[in-house]
C-alpha cells in the first residue's frame, strides 16, 4: 500500500515522540493524533492490516507539512513522506475529508489553488504585468497565493525588479508549479504533469533564472523537479535571496526606514527546507530595520499554518496562527514582517487589530531610492 520509504519512515516515527514540542498544530490542539508519532503509528498499523478509516484519513490533513518534525530529527526521518502518501491513498480511496475533496476538484479543474482560470489569475495585478515582454532573462514566478491573497506583494516585487533594471517577465498564463497540489494530495502523477508543463513554459520564456515569490514554489522546483529528473532550464532562487543579491550587487539602493518595534517570521519552506534564514535578515538590516527576534526563530520558527491549510481548514489554521502570534506577542514588537505570501495571507487574516503585518517585498519597495 505504501512505498518502501514511507513504510520505513512511518515505522521509525511510530514509537518516537522526540519532535512533539515543535509541531505547531499538536501544540495548539493538544490532540495526540496531530503529532508525527501518531500519524506514523497509523500508517504502520495500516501496513500491518488495519483498514484505512475516514477519521485516520482526516488526521492526515491536520498537518501543515511545515517540516518542524523532520528538521528536528537527529536521524533524519521525514514524516512528510508518509503523510503525503497517506493523503494520496485517501483521495484514491475516496475517504478524504469533504473540504479536501472539494479543493482537490477545484485544483484539478483549474490548476489553481483558488479555482482561477489563467485569465483570472492575475486580475488584481493586471496593470503591473500587462506591459512585460514575453521572454526575458529572469522569470518572476508569482504563484497562486500571492496572485490571489497578497497581490500587493506581487506588485511590489514587480516594482522592485523594474527599479533594479532587471530584464524580467511574468508568465501571463502562469501554470501551477504543483507545490500546493503536491501538498494536498501527495506527489502523484497529476502533480508531476503540472511540473512538466511549467518547465516547458519556463523554457519558452528563455529565462535562465526563476525568482520564486512563494518559497513553496521554489522548494518544489529545487527539490522535487530535480528528483523527478525534469528539465528545468533555469536556476531557481527565492525572493529573499534575490533581494539580498540585488542589494549586495548594488542593483538596488535602499534608504533606511523608520520602523521600530518589528519582529520577523521565518517561513518554514525557506528556513527548514531551503536552509536560508539570513537573506531576509540581511535585507532588513540594509534598510536599517532592527528586528526583535521571537524566541523560536529561524529553523525553529513555528509555522502559522500556511495558505493551503487556510483553504481547507480555516479554523485549524486560525488556531495554528494564534500560536505564532502569541510568540510575537511576547516580544515588544507590534509589527510582524513576513517573507512569504502564505504567511502574509494567514497573518493578515487572523492578526489582532493592534498588530501590523507587512512583508519584506513591501518594505523593500518602500525603501527603494528612486
Amino acid at each position, binding site marked *: 500500500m505504501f512505498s518502501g520509504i514511507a513504510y520505513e519512515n512511518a515505522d*521509525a*516515527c*511510530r*514509537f*518516537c*515522540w*522526540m*519532535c*512533539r*514540542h*515543535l509541531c505547531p498544530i*499538536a*501544540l495548539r*490542539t*493538544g*490532540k*495526540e*493524533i496531530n503529532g508525527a508519532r*501518531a500519524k506514523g*503509528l*497509523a500508517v*504502520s*498499523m495500516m501496513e*500491518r*492490516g*488495519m483498514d484505512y*478509516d475516514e*477519521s*485516520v484519513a*482526516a*488526521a492526515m490533513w491536520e498537518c501543515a507539512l511545515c517540516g518542524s518534525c523532520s528538521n*528536528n*530529527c*537527529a*536521524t533524519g*526521518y521525514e514524516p512528510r513522506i508518509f503523510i503525503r502518501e497517506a493523503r494520496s491513498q485517501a483521495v484514491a480511496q475516496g475517504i478524504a475529508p469533504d473540504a479536501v475533496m472539494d479543493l482537490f476538484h477545484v485544483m484539478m479543474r483549474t490548476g489553481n489553488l483558488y479555482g482561477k482560470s489563467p485569465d483570472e489569475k492575475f486580475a488584481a495585478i493586471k496593470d503591473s504585468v500587462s506591459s512585460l515582454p514575453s521572454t526575458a532573462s529572469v522569470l518572476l514566478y508569482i504563484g497562486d497565493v500571492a496572485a490571489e491573497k497578497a497581490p500587493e506583494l506581487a506588485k511590489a516585487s514587480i516594482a522592485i525588479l523594474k527599479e533594479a533594471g532587471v530584464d524580467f517577465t511574468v508568465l501571463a498564463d502562469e501554470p501551477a508549479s504543483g507545490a500546493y497540489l503536491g501538498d494536498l494530495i501527495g506527489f502523484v502523477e497529476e502533480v508531476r504533469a503540472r511540473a512538466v508543463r511549467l518547465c516547458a513554459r519556463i523554457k519558452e520564456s528563455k529565462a535562465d533564472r526563476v525568482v520564486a515569490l512563494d518559497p513553496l514554489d521554489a522548494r518544489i522546483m529545487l527539490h522535487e523537479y530535480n528528483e523527478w529528473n525534469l528539465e528545468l532550464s533555469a536556476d531557481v532562487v527565492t525572493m529573499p535571496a534575490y533581494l539580498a543579491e540585488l542589494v549586495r550587487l548594488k542593483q538596488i539602493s535602499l534608504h533606511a526606514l523608520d520602523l521600530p518595534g518589528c519582529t520577523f517570521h521565518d517561513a518554514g519552506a525557506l528556513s527548514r527546507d531551503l536552509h536560508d534564514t539570513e537573506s531576509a535578515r540581511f535585507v532588513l538590516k540594509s534598510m536599517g530595520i532592527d528586528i526583535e527576534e521571537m*524566541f*523560536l526563530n529561524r529553523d525553529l520558527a513555528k509555522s502559522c499554518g500556511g495558505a493551503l491549510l487556510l483553504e481547507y481548514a480555516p479554523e485549524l489554521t486560525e488556531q495554528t496562527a494564534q500560536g505564532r502570534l502569541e510568540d510575537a506577542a*511576547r516580544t515588544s514588537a507590534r509589527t510582524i514582517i513576513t517573507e512569504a505570501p502564505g504567511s502574509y495571507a494567514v497573518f493578515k487574516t487572523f492578526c489582532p487589530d493592534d498588530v501590523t503585518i507587512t512583508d519584506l517585498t513591501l518594505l523593500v519597495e518602500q525603501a527603494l531610492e528612486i
Partner: protein
Amino acid sequence: MRFEAFMDKMVQSEFEDAVGKENVSVSFADKLSYGVDYFWVSRFWADKGQRLPQPDFIVRPGSAAEVSKVLKIANYYKIPVHTWGGGSGSQGSALPMAGGIILDMKRMNRLIGIDENTRSITAEAGMIFQTLEWHANEHGYTTMHIPSCLTCGTIGGALAHRGIGIMSTKYGKIDDQCLNMEIVLPNGDIINTLPVPKHAAGPDLNQIFIGSEGTLGIITKATVKLFKQPECRKFGSYLFQKFDDGILACRDIVQLVKPSILRLFDPAETVSIIKSIIGVEQVGSFMNYAVEGNPDIAEFEQETIRRICERYGGEDMGAEYGEKWYENRITFFYPGHIMNNPQMFGTMDTVCTYENVLPVYHAMKDVVEQNFPGVRFIAHCSHWYDWGTMIYDRFIMDEPPEDPDEAIRLHNEIWNAGVRAAMAHGGVINDHHGIGLKLSRLMKEQYGPAMQVLEGLKKSLDPNGIMNPYKLGL
C-alpha cells in the same frame, strides 16, 4: 461495566457538556493514537499488528474545573480514567488498559507566571516540559530538569512518575524541584498543596501525589524552581579499568562537589553505545561529567574531580568526550540510535545505597545473563545522591520470540528476575521511570506490609477504583 444501546451517547453528551463538544472524541483515529506508549509490550503488540488498547472516550479538559466535572461524571458511572500527558513513558502508565476515558491533558498548557523574586515558574500540567524550559530561557533562567523526554513529556508526566533529568546530581529530581501543585481529587475536589515544600505541617502532600501516576488524583498545575543559567559549564571524562573503581570515585566526588552531569558506564555499555555515539575506543568504564555555575567554583570542582579520579586510577580522557556526550545527549534516544523493535529491551533503573551498588549490579547482571540466553545486559550510573546512586540497567535481546504470548511471558520473566535480584540486595524497584503497568505486580513485594499505607490512600481517595486501574500496584 457495559453500556447498553444508546447509553454511551448519553455519557458522551455529559462529557461534551463538561469540556465542549470539540474536546470529546470517540473517533477511531483518536483512539488509535493512545494505544502505544514507550512500554516495550505495547510497542511489540503494535509491531505485530495486534488490536491496541483503546479508550471509549477521549476527553480533553481545558481547566482544573473541567477536570473536576469529568471526574465527577466518571465516578458516577464508574468509568476508568487514564490520564495522558505526553504518552512517552516507558512503564505503560498511561495506556488505557481498562478502556474508559483517556483524559488528554495537553490542552492545559498555559504559562501561569514567572516569579523572578522566588525563582519559580508556574504552569498548567499539560505543558510539554520543553515549552516550560523555553519560557524559562526567555527570561534567562532554566528549570534544570533536562530529561531525555524533555521534548515529549509534560510537566504532569514528569511529576506523576518522579522524573529526573541529566542535571539531577546538582539540581535534583522533579520531586526536589517542585514547590507546589494543584490537584483534582477523584471526587472532583480541587486542592492545592502547601505553598512551600519544606514545612512542619504534617506529611508532605507534594510527595503523596508526586509519583502517584494518576491513581490518586490528577495534577493540573505546578510550580517548579528556576535557576539562573550557569556562567560556565566545563566538561571532562575519565576511563576506569574497573566499574567498581568508578563507583568509588563518583561516590567520593559527590561528597565534596556537585557536578551537574556525572555518568559512569559499565564496560559493556562503554564498548557498545558509548563507542558508537561518541567514539571512545578503549575498554573499561567510561565516565563523563560537567561542572557549572561560577567559574572559580567550577574550576575548583574540576580540580577536585581530577584528584579523586587519579586516586582510583582513572585515565584523564579530556574535555572533548564530555562535550561530545553533552552534544549528543538527546541523539541517543532517536530511532536508529536506541534499541528498537524487533529487539526486546527494558530499562531496570534501580536505586540503592553505596553499600549495595555493586551487589545489586552484579546480582542483576548475573541473573539476567545466566538465565536468559541471548540477552545482553548493560548499565550506567547517571544520577548520584549523597547516599547512593541509580543503576540504569538495560537488557537487550536481539531476536525475541515471534509468538506474542511467548515474548510477553519471557519479557516479564526477565523483568521479574532482574528486579527481584535488585530488591534482594537492597535495591529499590525504580529510580525515575515509575511503576505503571510494567512493574505493578512487584509493588507488594517491594513494599511488604508498608503497601497498606498506599492502599489506604487509594481506598480513601478513589473508593470506586476508577483512577488508572492496574497501575502502581493499586
